[in-house]
């Protein structure tokens, strides 16, 4: 099968020293460039919309980005563990549908009279279960992730429709009120949730032996296998972790929207873009949890800035598109034109 569809450019191996330095410089320029671009975006909006650079607004952006951020972190874990080859490597297209079903399960349980003690585990279990199905499909059946998660996405989106009959199931509990309220410094609780979740996920992925193995498995599965790592279990684990993120995002989305959502599928492409953009914020151009947070915030700030400036939000999707292309073009040129 024509399966060499890489999402991210491959890293050139070897090359002489000058070339190496050149590449390093180019990488530095790209990384610096992306941070610079981020800073420029912030400065531009701060100057043109005075309200933009206030603690309250930044907190709002963080809060509004919480759902996207949690999902994108889930996808990042899968991409790290699966490598950047889209078809053979890691991708989880079922994440957005997962959010939809988990949110629906949560809201339905609440409206059926169950408390949070049932509904929260219910939503998380839904997410994990979807992750397990993905893991089995990818690791046991050997279906390429793009297709496996595509099929699972259809099933999950269908189940959500069956459960909610395509209506919004509203839900309100004390727990949800807390989640959707404002915490210390007048910053939304959801913003704190995003930051805490990123720190936790980042700690596990970037600073533990488990995280290191995840990278090893993704970048060079054969070598990882030869070194005795349980490759299949780690890959399976990455899909289950991603499923858990979907369940968590489902709960956050019920808090944010005071009910289930019928438009969860719309989240899929923004999530994919956010996770893929994360590479430009890392030193070696690999996906990282911190990078994903930054790219989530970049998208969030752009959307917010446009709203404050009364510029049509329809431009956001176009700007996301241009961003991907600029970033990836820069990376591709950096690695030489060979990788068509």
């Amino acid at each position, binding site marked *: 099968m024509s399966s060499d569809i890489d999402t991210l450019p491959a890293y050139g191996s070897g090359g002489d020293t000058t070339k190496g330095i050149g590449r390093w410089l180019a990488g530095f320029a790209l990384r610096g460039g992306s941070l610079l671009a981020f800073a420029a975006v912030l400065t531009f909006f701060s100057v043109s919309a005075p309200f933009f650079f206030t603690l309250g607004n930044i907190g709002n952006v963080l809060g509004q980005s919480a759902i996207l951020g949690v999902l994108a972190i889930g996808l990042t874990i899968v991409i790290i563990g699966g490598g950047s080859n889209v078809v053979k490597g890691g991708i989880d297209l079922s994440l957005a549908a997962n959010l939809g079903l988990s949110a629906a399960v949560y809201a339905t349980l609440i409206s059926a009279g169950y408390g949070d003690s049932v509904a929260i585990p219910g939503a998380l279990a839904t997410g994990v279960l979807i992750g397990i199905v993905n893991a089995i499909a990818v690791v046991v059946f050997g*279906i390429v992730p793009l297709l496996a998660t*595509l*099929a699972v996405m*259809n*099933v999950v989106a*269908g189940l959500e*429709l*069956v459960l909610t009959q395509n209506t919004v199931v509203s839900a309100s509990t004390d727990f949800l009120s807390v989640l959707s309220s404002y915490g210390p410094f007048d910053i939304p609780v959801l913003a704190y949730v995003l930051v805490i979740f990123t720190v936790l996920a980042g700690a596990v992925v970037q600073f533990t032996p488990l995280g290191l193995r995840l990278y090893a498995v993704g970048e060079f599965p054969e070598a990882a296998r030869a070194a005795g790592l349980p490759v299949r279990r780690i890959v399976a684990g990455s899909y289950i972790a991603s499923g858990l993120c979907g369940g968590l995002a489902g709960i956050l989305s019920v808090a944010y929207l005071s009910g289930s959502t019928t438009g969860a599928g719309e989240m899929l492409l923004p999530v994919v873009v956010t996770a893929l953009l994360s590479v430009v914020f890392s030193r070696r151009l690999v996906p990282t949890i911190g990078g994903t947070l930054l790219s989530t915030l970049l998208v969030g700030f752009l959307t917010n800035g446009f709203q404050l400036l009364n510029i049509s939000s329809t431009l956001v999707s176009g700007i996301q598109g241009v961003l991907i*292309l600029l970033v990836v*073009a820069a990376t591709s040129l950096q690695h030489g034109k060979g990788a068509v």
Partner: protein
Amino acid sequence: MSTVANPAIKDRFTPKSFGEGVVRYAVIIALAGVFAFFSFATSTFLTSANLASILVNNFTLLAIIAVAMTFAVSAGGIDLSVGTAVDFASFAFVSLVLSGHSVGLAVIAALASGAIVGLVNALLIAGVGITPFLATLGTLFIGRSAQQLLTNGGNPVYLPQTGIPPLFGFIGHGHILGIPVPLVIVGLLIIAASTLLFSTRFGRVVLAIGVQQSVARYSGLRISGHIGLVYVISGFVAALAGIILTSTVSVYIPNSGNAFMLNAIGATFIGTTLSREGRPNVPGTVLGVLLLSIVANGLLLTGLSFYWQQVGTGLLIFIVLAASFLNRSSRSD
């Protein structure tokens, strides 16, 4: 998959060959299975009126878009922006007809719009060197914004009931020798696409690039030009679906083409099971589309809620994929 070479010949006389046969013909078996199932389960499925409706209503558009996708996948890529090409073609078609131009000119403009979307992909992929997945994803996002800007935030463009040249509706509703026009177009497209991919030098180069791009390059083939052309063709072919869609419903709805994208990918990859090497191929894609169409139609007839239909379709794709990949991975181990 490139790691799974071609061990089928070696294994021909082992008991495994039965299992392989099942997988090799998984699509056909599944097709026969769902066909038989719906024939017994519902009284209305096996009527000529319904079978014709499957072809016209369920099959046509997805078949065209999946053929477009097959070109990109054949060259080792993917085209996530097929829906964007459908939309732009649809927009150009409606706009030109609305402003009083002839249907012929509108059709040409629509096809050109689709090809331009493909050309953007071609420049990004073959020119700049961006991987197909991201390049076409970028095109999709930019196309989405562009359509919203063109339509004041996403308002549909309706055609009035009167004063539209009859040729406009003929594309979607007319008949040639008793055969619906959309089916004629699909039939010609399938023949043309099969011929182009399997019986021309261009097709052989594209397939070679899809199997092993580096080898194709070292063999002295002109990689970039061929890859670029593949995406232009993909956009051009997808534009056909935009024209038929618009002619059928007389309205352009911004960003409606993306709904086909994932099913087109599904059909193309289901179709790969038909080839011994697991390669994309036009007949396989067409059977994959037929399978999805029959399931969509049959589930509708069983009176199952619309929502269960999506679950059923997903499960079926899942099972077909699991059957084929389970076997392939056991062969490679």
